[in-house]
Each structure stands twice: as C-alpha cells, then as structure tokens.
C-alpha cells in the first residue's frame, strides 16, 4: 500500500523534475526524471511517484498542459501531494 505524502518546495522555479502523463495521454501524471541536487530531489520526491494534487488542487482530469500550467503558476512555494 503506497502512501501519500506532501511536499512543499521552496521557490522559486526550477524545481528539478520532469513531469510526464496527463488525461490526454491516458497516463497518470508522474515524475519521470529528477535533476540531481535539484529542489525536487532534495525535497524527497521519487521517480515514478504520481502527482495527486498541485497546490491543493487534485490532478484528476487534468491534461498535461493544465498540470504544467498549474505548476508554472505557483510563484513562491510549490505544494505537491504525491503517491
């Protein structure tokens, strides 16, 4: 049973991860790559983890562009809930 966890990365961007997937790709939004020493890596995010919510907003139904925009719109800190 994989557990959910929340991470808040201190801004600003870049966060240091590659986001893959989306409703339009019929794939869940997942972290496909981490930049070594990047904020995401330091924040404890793992490769393959699914992004459940971005800044408190659930990613269910989001297409890739929407998710991308959402992350990009976070000025300051980025709060993610992952699995």
């Amino acid at each position: 049973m994989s557990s959910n966890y929340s991470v808040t990365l201190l801004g600003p961007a870049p966060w240091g991860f590659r986001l893959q997937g989306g409703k339009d790709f019929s794939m869940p939004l997942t972290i496909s790559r981490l930049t070594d020493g990047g904020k995401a890596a330091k924040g404890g995010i793992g490769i393959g983890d699914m992004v459940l919510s971005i800044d408190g907003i659930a990613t269910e139904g989001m297409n890739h562009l929407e998710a991308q925009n959402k992350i990009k719109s976070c000025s300051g800190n980025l709060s993610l809930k992952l699995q």
Partner: protein
Amino acid sequence: MMTMTQMETTVHYDNGYDEYQYMNQEDEWDRDNLLDPAWEQQQRKTFTAWCNSHLRKAGTQIENIEEDFRNGLKLMLLLEVISGERLPKPDRGKMRFHKIANVNKALEYITSKGVKLVSIGAEEIVDGNVKMTLGMIWTIILRFAIQDINVEETSAKEGLLLWCQRKTAPYRNVNVQNFHVSWKDGLAFCALIHRHRPDLLDYSKLNKDDPLGNLNLAFDIAEKHLDIPKMLDAEDIINTPKPDERAIMTYMSCFYHAFAGAEQAETAANRICKVLGVNQENEKMMEEYERLASELLEWIRRTTPWLENRTPEKTMAEMQQKLEDFRDYRRQHKPPKVQEKCQLEINFNTLQTKLRISNRPAFMPSEGKMVSDIASAWQGLDQAEKGYEEWLLTEIRRLERLDHLAEKFRQKATNHENWASGKELILSQKDYETATLMEIKALLRKHEAFESDLAAHQDRVEQIAAIAQELNELDYHDVAAVNQRCQSICDLWDRLGTLTQKRREALERTDKLLETIDQLFIEFAKRLAPFNNWMEGAMEDLQDMFIVHTIEEVQSLIAAHEQFKATLPEADAERQALLGIHNEVQKISQSYGIKANIVNPYSTLTTEDLIEKWDKVKKLVPQRDGALHEEMARQHANERLRRQFAAQANLIGPWIQIRMEEIGRCSLEIGGTLEDQMTQLKQCEHVIVAYKPNVDKLEGDHQLIQESLVFDNKHTNYTMEHIRVGWELLLTTVARTINEIETQILTRDAKGISQQQMKEFRSSFNHFDRKKNGAMETDDFRACLISMGYDLGEVEFARIMILVDPNGTGNVSFQSFIDFMTRETADTDTADQVVASFRILATDKPYILMEELRRELPPEQAEYCIMRMPPYAVSGAPPGALDYTAFSTALYGESDL
C-alpha cells in the same frame, strides 16, 4: 375480806375473850363477867326477850329466866322451837327428878348438837342458878342463833361481826369494831335497819349525839316492823361504859336472822326467780329452738325440692339464670340460714349447758326436730345443693356443648349448602353434547377436579351427620330442624353423587366418541396431506410447462405420463378411503347425537377440496396427453431444423478457421515484402467478403431454430455465435492485419527502416512472442530487451513499459515494439525538435508572438497553437508572448519543470 379477817384477829375484847375461844368460854365464864351485875341485868333482859321471841311461836312466854326454865319443860320447848326438831317426850311429873330428867334431855340435846357443856348441870338449872341458866341460854343462843352464821366464809361471832360491818360499811359515821361500845350511839342499829329497810327510817335525820333517840328508834322499829322484840334497854346501853357483849350479840343475831333470813328469803326468792327465770329462759330457748328448728326444717323442706328439681331448660341463658339463682341462693339466701342453723346449734348447746349447769335434765327436742334430724336434713340439703350445682354445671356444659354443636352444625351445613348450591344444575348440564374434543377433555378434567372436590366433601357431610347425631343423643331442643336440614343435605349429597356418576359416564362416552372421531380426523389428515400433495404434484406435473429440446425428452415425458396414468387407480382407491373416513365421522356423530360442529382440526383441506382437486386431476390427464403429443411433433420438426443448421455450420466453421490461419501465417511470414503480404491479404479479404451469403443463410437457419426455441444442437459444435464471432473476427483480423501491414509500411517509410531491419524486428518479435499470439507479454519484452543488450533497472524498464504499453494491457504489440525500437535508435528527441522548430519561427526568442504563428503556420494550426500555448510569464516579455516550450513538452506529455 382478808383485811377484815385480819382485823378481826387483832381485835382484842376488853373482856379478854379471844375470838376463837368462845366455844370454850364456859371456862372463862366461870372466872369473870358475871362479876358485873350490869351485864347480868342486861343479859337477863336480853335473853328473856330472845327466848320469848321463840317461845311465842309455841304459844308461851317466860317471865323470869332463872325461874321459868327450872322444870325444863319450856327449855325443851324452846329447843324444839329453835331447832325445829322433836326432843324426847318430857317427863310430866313435878318431882325434882322429873325436872332434872327434862333438863337433862334438853342438855343432852344441846350436847348432841356438838356443844360441850362444861360445868353446867341439870341440878343447877333446876335449882335456878342464874349464872348457870344465863350461861346455858347463852350456850343455846350461841349454838342455834350465832353458830351457823356464815358470812363470807367467816362463821359464828366473827361472821356476825363481819355481817354487821359489811352492812354498815356504807355508813360513814358507823364503825362496828366490836359487840359493845361500837353500838353505844345507836347509829349502828339504825344503819343496819336502814340498810335493809330504808323505808323504815330516814337515816339522814339521825344524830350521833342522840344515842338515846337513836337506840329507841331502832328498837321500836325493830319491834314494830321486823318482828324483833326489844331485848335491850337504851338507857342501860348508854349508861354502861361497856355494854354487855352477849346481849348485843344476841339482839344482833336476831337482826341477822331477820335480815339474813329476809335476805335468804330474798336469795331464795331470787334463786327461785333465777331458777324459774332459768326455767323460763330455758323454756323460751326450747321454744325458740323448736321454732327455729321448725322454720329451718320448713325452709329445708321447701328448698330441697327446688334443689332436686332436674327439669332442664332449653336455652343456656335460662340455665345460666338458674345458676345465677342458685348463686343468689348460696350467696344471699343460704348464709342467713347457715347462721340460723349455727345459731340453732349454739342455742341448743347453750341450752343443754345451761340445763346441765342448773341441774336440769337435758333438752329433748320434739320428734323430728332433734339435732340429728336437723343435721341430716341439713346434710340432705347440702347434698341436694351439691347435686344441684353439679347438675346445673353439667346442664350448662351440656347446653354449651349443644349450642356449640348446633352452631358448628349450622356453620358446616351452611358452608356445605353454599358449596352444593347450584352443583345439581351444573351436573345436569348437557354441555358435552356440543363440545369439541378439547372441550370435552377440559370438561373431563373439570369434572375430575369436581369429583375430588366431592370426595373431599364426603368427609364434611359425614361430619355434619355426626354432629346431627350427637345433637340427637344430647337431646338438643331444636333437634327436629337439625334433622330436617341434615336429611336434606344427605339427600342432596346422594343426588349429587348420582349426577356426578352419570355425568362422568356421559363425558367419558362423549370423550371416547370424539376421540374416535379425532383419530379418524387424524388419519384423514395424515392421508389427505400426502394425497393432496400427490394431487397437487400431479396437477403441477400435468400442467407442467415442459420445455423440451429433444425427442427423447418428450418420449420420456410421455413415458412418465403413462406411468402416472397407471397410478391413478391406486390414487382413486385412496380417495375413496379418505372419503370413507369422512363418511364414518358423519355416521358416528349422527348416530350418537353429537351436536357439536365437527370440524377436522388437523386439516385445512376439506373433502370438497379433495373432490375438486381430484376432478381437476382427472381432467388434466387427457389434456396432458394431447400436449405431449403436440410437443412430440414439434420436437421432430426442431430436429430437422437442427440438422439443417448443423450441416451448414459445419461447413462454415472450418472454412473460417482456415481463413484465419491463412491470415495468421501471412502476417507472421518473414519472406517477401510488406507489399506482397498486403496483396495476399487483400485477396483473402475478397474471398471472405464473397463468402458472406453463406453466413447470412446460416443466420436465417439460426433464426428459424431460435424461433422454434431450439437452443442446442448436438449435430454441430458450432453455434451461431461462434460462426458470427468467428466471421467478425475474421473480418476484423483481416482488416487489422492489412492495417498492420499498412502501418508497418508507413513506419518503414517514415523511419526509414529497411526490409532487412523489418525482418529482424519481425523475427525478434516472433521469437519472444512465446505464445505466438502476435503480442509480447511484459516478461517476453523484458527478455527481448535484455537480449538486445539493454541492461535495465526496474525504473527504466517501467518507463519503457509505460511507453510501449500505455494502456497497461500487459502486452506489447508489434507496432509498439517497432515504435520503441525505432524511437530508441532515433537520434533526436522529438519534443526538442518541435521546440527547435518553434525557436526558428520565433527568431531565437524564448517566446513566440501570435502574429509570428499566424505568419508562419497555416491558419488552423496557428489558431490551435494560440489557443493552447500558455502565456510566456517571464518579466521583460511583451504582452501576447506565448510559451512554445511548455506547449511542445506538453504535446509529448513530458515537461521539465
């Protein structure tokens, strides 16, 4: 008294006489007092008077004391008169010796009276010796007038003196101490007279200083009234210093005899009176006794019958009244009688004592009034009393007991009557006629309870009878009513017994009948149930909507039906039996008059139901026959259809199979170009399409079969569905395969994959397609990659899997495989290529403007980009700047953030 006597003893007389010595005074007399002539004188007078006082009773007197006694005759006379005795006859001669003889007789007589005559001889007397004569007379006086004086046990001279003293004691101025000087003032004489006869002189008027008067007065009165002649001379006494003692003694002795005599007479009279009085008293007492005795006896006589009365009273109150009366008697009436009796006894005793004391003969009560009579009568009374009291108490007890018994009887009888009331009616009920079995059982139990209640009451009835019996024996006053009630109770009891018995019999009989009926009902129900089931089952079966698909089924149904028909006679018999039971029940209840509503409690089904169902069953049998035969026909028809279908399907099925194999082979083939494959496939397709009518026809047959509701077909393994699916699969397979080839051609052309590469890809794919189903499974793919030299970690492999199997089907298609392989061997990242392309259009700016898009791209694509591209939100960028990088990465689903 004693003092007087003592005083007496101390008195000394002047003449020297000693008190106790005057019996012998002849001796002294010889010596002295006659020397005094005064005394002689006095004595003469006194003695003469004295003798005359006696002699006058003989009718004679003396004049001269020394002369008249000389012949002795008057002397003898005197003695006779004084003594009251006869002397020897005097000698009647005149001669001296006659006179001496007479005087001697007299002297002998005197001597015979116990007087010692010393120196007094008859001769001196005959000779007229004064001294002797006086002495002799004095001896006589002493002996006959003084000697016998007895006063308070003092005799003679002392006695006389004592007498004088006693009698004069009350007179203060009189003090008699002697017979001489005490008498000189005459008061003593007067006092003495006055003491005895106060009526003769007034003592208070006497004067001590007038002795002469006193003396004369006394002498006069004595002579006149007391018959005492004067013997003393008053002057002599006064003049003589000491008067002659003897003279005074002589005179006083006369007083003594006069008064004492009077006293004696008085005493005698008193004695007589006393005696008479005692007599009278006694007589009175006797009378009183007699009277009391009579009364008492009378009372006893009256009372005894009352106490012996044994008439019983009826009620206790009356008896108690009697007891009360008895108590009254005991408390009030008897005690005085007891006292009377006691008094009577006392009186009797007193009387007897008095009589005894007074020397009288004992009192003899008259006949029937004797002490013993009284005692026995009294005893009788006591016994009667006791008996009466006992009887009263016994009676009261008896009445009490009777009352108690009577009350007990009443109570018990009432209780019993209360209990028994209404029982007759209840027992006479005919409720069992309309009772059901349960009700009868309840009634029986109730009756049982009643029977034991009855038995329990048996005791009580017996008790009541016993009490009645006892009341009879004890003679209760209202025994008639008791007996009547007892009788009616007993009669009722008998009746109850009879009714109880009858009811028991009726109940038991009815119970048995109802039991029998019940049993019949049970049997009926027991048999009806399965029979009903059978009928229901039969009805069901007969109406059974059979769905048969084979002729055999119909045949077996028909066979079953025939079998069933064979069981009908047996069933009918059962039916008859059941009806028979019912009829029997009817018969029983009719013949025994059971009026209850006889309903079978064990079964809700009635005979009507039974009959109805049976009829139905009967009807259904031929119906089923018909139905079955119809069905048989149908089945035959179906069979024909089946065969028809089967024949067809058996052709088509394999044909499809062959085609599928063809196609499979074709797609897997490595030799020859894709175009060749394509051509083959197209040909195949053509053939397939041309074959369609066969399938359609089969569909038609199938429809018929379906319309006939035939769902199975043992003549073929192919169902319509099979054929249909197979057909469609064939169609799709051929189309897909063609498509695959087309795609492969496209890919080959697009990626520039040579025929050789294609063949390699194909052979690798086929090799790792273990299952040979045109797709690689995950493990197959992994193995494939490894064989190609990819050393993959799990994460990377997972990424790759996501790429090749985005839908997570677990299978990698040949196309995906080729895509993956070609992608991996490609040099460039297509996302980067797109970004690079946009950069060129944006003249190296990190953002692109709308007019640039519109200028460089076809309008549709330009608008598409404008709509989709996010704004480029970096400071310094002009408005309307669009982020083509984000867009491009988003296109490929991969953004670096």
